[in-house]
């Protein structure tokens, strides 16, 4: 296994004399090691010392040896992702059609292109290689900017510099982010609305300004966050969206094989390793190549163990589940496929406890989501199992409630509820397969407003007030609100909800 890489590494290769009084070596030999030389050993051994040593070969020129060593160490320190990255568009992992799409898009040079897709799908490399091949006159903003801290002002400067002075016709901005100073954040506070946070608002403002100032430049934004910029903003700016998908498993394996070939290794002998690396990488080419580098070095160190098991033990990526996935996994409860003859239920693919652990969401939240979506999956006849399941959910809520029991019982709660769901949603109880969207649990007014100060003071009774009294109340509430600002007296008006307005008046009368 060490055959191919060993000659590059040590400066000299010695075969130590059989009589050398080195205990470490003795143990090596007695273990039946044959030719086994640790690197450390070979450096310690002076090149010309050991008198009876039989030289196999020595480097004739010491400088040459050093150069080789430097090259070797450089190679060792270099990441394979950099070393074996694609050099031309033919080597890209991107799907052919996607590549054509991207090429067509770039060569037409629209004002704004937004390339998004998961990390390690090859977005940045593809854009770079395409820009070079098409000779678009592209410039890369991230080379102009600091690695981390860019305020909007620096980013704007850099953009203008590229557009005006370097005459760049395409500017590529990889992972556009702005780091806002505290003052900027304060300033952005008022721009902030909805879910978009302050810095995306700042980014939008910056891009708006740039697009207005430089009209003949094509700006390419690359991001793995497809919600970096709101859709309506992108539409307003006539942006071309290109979505890059994760790399397909077969494509991953092909690329990894290519790397092995470049390293003069036979891909066939590492088949299982490559497969498990590709599986663990889950469509991320960068992770796959790093994984291969890591596991190959590991496999070469521990020559005895099988490559496959190494890959499994080292490379398994612990991907957290999104809420959506976790709920789906619990609801659909896939089972392992077994032979048709076997009796009983097949084991589950994903154990509910593992799912809840891996999504690492609060138990309450997960329970609410599952409960909100479970009932739809029962067939119209399955009232009894549905009732049993609801019963268990009720019990689970009782367990997970913080009031009486401490939070210790929370794992049990999710276990109880999801197991109950899983074992009742079987066979004919399950509604025929069709598309069922996952819905959010109904949002109640936050627990706090449940009986807001207002409703509480008038006695939880917002809904009690008969409809015929409400219109009159609403009118008087408005007038009282007007009066309150002037009088400063003992009047206060409470509007728990826009349509249910209540008034409570406490007057100063001493009768």
């Amino acid at each position: 296994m060490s055959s191919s890489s060993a000659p590059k590494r040590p400066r000299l290769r010695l075969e130590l004399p059989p009589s050398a009084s080195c205990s470490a070596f003795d143990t090596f030999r007695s273990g039946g090691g044959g030719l086994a030389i640790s690197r450390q050993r070979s450096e310690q051994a002076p090149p010309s010392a050991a008198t009876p040593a039989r030289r196999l070969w020595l480097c004739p020129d010491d400088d040459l040896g050093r150069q080789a060593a430097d090259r070797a160490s450089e190679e060792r320190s270099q990441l394979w992702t950099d070393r074996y990255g694609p050099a031309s568009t033919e080597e890209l992992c991107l799907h052919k059609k996607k590549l054509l799409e991207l090429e067509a898009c770039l060569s037409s040079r629209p004002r704004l292109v937004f390339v998004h897709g998961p990390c390690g799908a090859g977005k940045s490399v593809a854009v770079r290689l395409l820009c070079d091949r098409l000779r678009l006159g592209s410039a890369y903003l991230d080379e102009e900017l600091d690695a981390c801290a860019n305020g909007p002002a620096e980013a704007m400067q850099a953009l203008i510099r590229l557009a005006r002075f370097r005459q760049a016709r395409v500017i590529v901005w990889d992972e556009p982010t702005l780091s806002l100073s505290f003052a900027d954040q304060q300033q952005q506070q008022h721009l902030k609305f909805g879910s978009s946070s302050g810095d995306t608002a700042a980014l939008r403002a910056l891009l708006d300004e740039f697009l207005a100032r430089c009209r003949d430049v094509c700006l390419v934004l690359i991001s793995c966050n497809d919600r970096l910029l709101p859709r309506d903003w992108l539409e307003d700016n006539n942006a071309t969206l290109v979505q890059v998908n994760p790399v397909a498993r077969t494509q991953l394996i092909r690329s990894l094989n290519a790397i092995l070939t470049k390293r003069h290794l036979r891909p066939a002998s590492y088949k299982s390793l490559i497969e498990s690396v590709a599986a663990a990488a889950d469509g991320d080419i960068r992770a796959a190549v790093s994984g291969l580098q890591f596991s190959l070095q590991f496999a070469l160190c521990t020559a005895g163990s099988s490559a496959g098991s190494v890959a499994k033990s080292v490379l398994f990526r612990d991907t957290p589940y999104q809420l959506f996935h976790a709920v789906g996994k619990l609801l659909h409860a896939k089972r392992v496929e077994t032979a048709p003859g076997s009796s009983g239920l097949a084991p589950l693919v994903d154990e509910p406890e593992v799912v809840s652990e891996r999504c690492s969401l609060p138990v309450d939240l997960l329970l609410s989501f599952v409960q909100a979506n479970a009932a739809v999956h029962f067939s119209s006849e399955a009232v009894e199992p549905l009732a049993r399941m609801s019963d268990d959910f009720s019990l689970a809520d009782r367990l997970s409630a913080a009031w009486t029991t401490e939070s210790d019982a929370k794992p049990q709660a999710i276990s109880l509820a999801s197991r109950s769901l899983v074992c009742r949603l079987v066979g004919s109880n399950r509604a025929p397969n069709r598309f069922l969207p996952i819905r959010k649990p109904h949002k109640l007014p936050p627990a706090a407003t449940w009986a807001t100060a207002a409703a509480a003071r008038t006695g939880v009774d917002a809904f009690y007030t008969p409809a015929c009294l409400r219109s009159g109340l609403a009118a008087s509430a408005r007038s009282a609100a007007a009066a309150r600002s002037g009088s400063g007296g003992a009047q206060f008006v409470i509007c728990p909800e826009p349509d249910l307005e209540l008034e409570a008046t406490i007057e100063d009368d001493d009768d």
Partner: protein
Amino acid sequence: MSLWVDKYRPKRLDKLDYHTDQADRLRALVESGDFPHLLVYGPPGAGKKTRIHALLRELYGAGVERLRLEQQSFTAPSKRKVEIETVSSNFHLEVSPGDAGIYDRVVVMELIKQVASVNQLDASQQREFKVVVLNEVDRLTKDAQHALRRTMEKYMATCRLILCANSTSKVIQAIRSRCLAVRVSAPTEDEIVQVLQGTCRKEGLSLPDSLARRIAQASERNLRRALLMAEACRAQQQPFDPDQSVCLGDWQLYLKETAKKVLEEQSPARLLIVRTRLYELLSHCVPPDLIMRCLVTELISSCDGTLKAEVLTLGAEYEHRMRLGQKAIFHLEAFVARFMAVYKKFMDEVIMADW
């Protein structure tokens, strides 16, 4: 226009319409100069808050009724800001700490500290303590209740607490033992009729006795509801008519319809419809235990005698769990689902027997 409920609320202990001997005792308590922390509990619409305000007035005079509404904010240890509304006079402070959700502990501790760490300036003229009224103590988390316990002991010299709750079952033992418990039971129907008649007299209306009685029956011994219903009847028809219909609250009609829907069809799809209706009620601040109770009564009244015991058992079971649990909808829905299962099985058997 203000509602009759607010307009004719008795302001003094001697003006109260019912539970007069309890009022006398409370007055005696105030006159003795000092009193322990109070825990006032009883069903909604029984007059807890009225009694608390009357007691405060007895303590401090009319100055207590000059109220101001304030927005206070506190910072939780996690640097999160908690805002809460308080109603206060110069002598007391009223707050519903449950509004702060899981941050109620901070509110309870900070607020009481704030009030209690200041002594009354003019101790000779006034009482030497202030009063903090905490509403809905049963909605406080256990944490906050324990915090409350420590605060209660620490600031006894300058501050008295009046706790107000619907039931003591969610108030921890430690607090219960530190307070003088005052139970305000719901008024009887006769008492409600009297109050209604009295109120209408003050409004210059004559309320027929039979209508008053019907309103009292429909109100389920909730005085506030009875007064609201009476006012709604007035809005419907200016001189009262003895045969006029008592309009129930919208939520009651809505619940009746919901129960009907449960009885019509038993299937998962129907459960989903019922769920949205339950959510509708919950989001309009109808307390879940009330929903449960009304739903059980409605369903019981229209199912076979042999099922009644079982349905009641189910109702009791889920109501209990709802008290201990957090998410009311889980338990409401479980009850509906179980009822559906039981009812469906029964109906299937009946159909089989008929064949």
